[in-house]
């Protein structure tokens, strides 16, 4: 749709605002994989409450807003369970090894003009693009 980019900008602005609150308020970088991953591997148990409350906000807002949403809302994710499992494993493993994902390296890193954030973003976009090209247009799996 032609209004998609406007909603993209508005939604992006809200994401950036969230990152600004987390940074200026708590002095922390808003990275989804870091906040979640620290709870999983134990490295973030010393401030677990802060992380859990953050995740609660992320999950709860769509629940609260969905009844007021016009039109259909869906993730349109593949129903291929094998693809879902492999993708999930790769995302979990990769983001924690690289120490960041789209929010941490992408939004917070690039806005800080961090070379590491920029390099990570270039590599995960390239890898994602090649994966789509291979799996969709060559092999026809997804």
């Amino acid at each position, binding site marked *: 749709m032609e209004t998609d980019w406007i909603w993209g900008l508005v939604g992006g602005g809200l994401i950036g605002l969230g990152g600004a609150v987390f940074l200026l308020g708590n002095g922390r970088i808003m990275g989804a994989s870091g906040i979640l991953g620290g709870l999983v591997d134990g490295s973030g148990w010393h401030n677990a409450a802060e992380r859990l409350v953050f995740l609660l906000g992320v999950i709860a807002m769509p629940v609260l807003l969905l009844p007021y949403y016009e039109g259909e809302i869906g993730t349109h994710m593949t129903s291929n369970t094998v693809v*879902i499992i492999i993708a*999930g494993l790769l995302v979990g493993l990769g983001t*924690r090894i690289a120490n960041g994902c789209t929010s941490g390296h992408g939004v917070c890193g690039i806005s800080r003009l961090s070379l590491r954030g920029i390099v990570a973003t270039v590599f995960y976009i390239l890898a994602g693009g090649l994966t789509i090209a291979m799996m969709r247009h060559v092999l026809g799996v997804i």
Partner: protein
Amino acid sequence: MQRLFLSLLAGALFGTGLLVSGMTDTTKVQGWLDVFGKWDPTLAFVMGGAIVPMFFAWRLTRGRSPLVGGSFPSVPRPQMDHRLITGSVLFGMGWGLAGLCPGPAIASLSYNGIGGLIFLAAMLLGMLAAPKAGRQLDRLATNV
């Protein structure tokens, strides 16, 4: 208490932004990556929209402290190590396969069905395995 409130607020803004921007729709994310198919530029607008307020936020950190006290995160050494590159490539492959990254995977939990839960479980498993896998990667890198 203030710390928890600000954390909840940040999460609420993040979750709302992910929903509103369309980034929990995997067709939009895969559409951005699919340069040989029906390319969708929305993700670039989301990134741009998010980077602008964050850019000013980083400028505001200069000479100040966080509202709740403590200090701002230090700038990491601009070092391009094997972890950053390998990890990002692995992440990108998974991101392309399913069209979900960690933020949207969490935000969409309430409307992504059983597949969303399976993705989350696999992602958590990957995160659990990451410290060990990272150490193995270090060993591999020193031997090369």
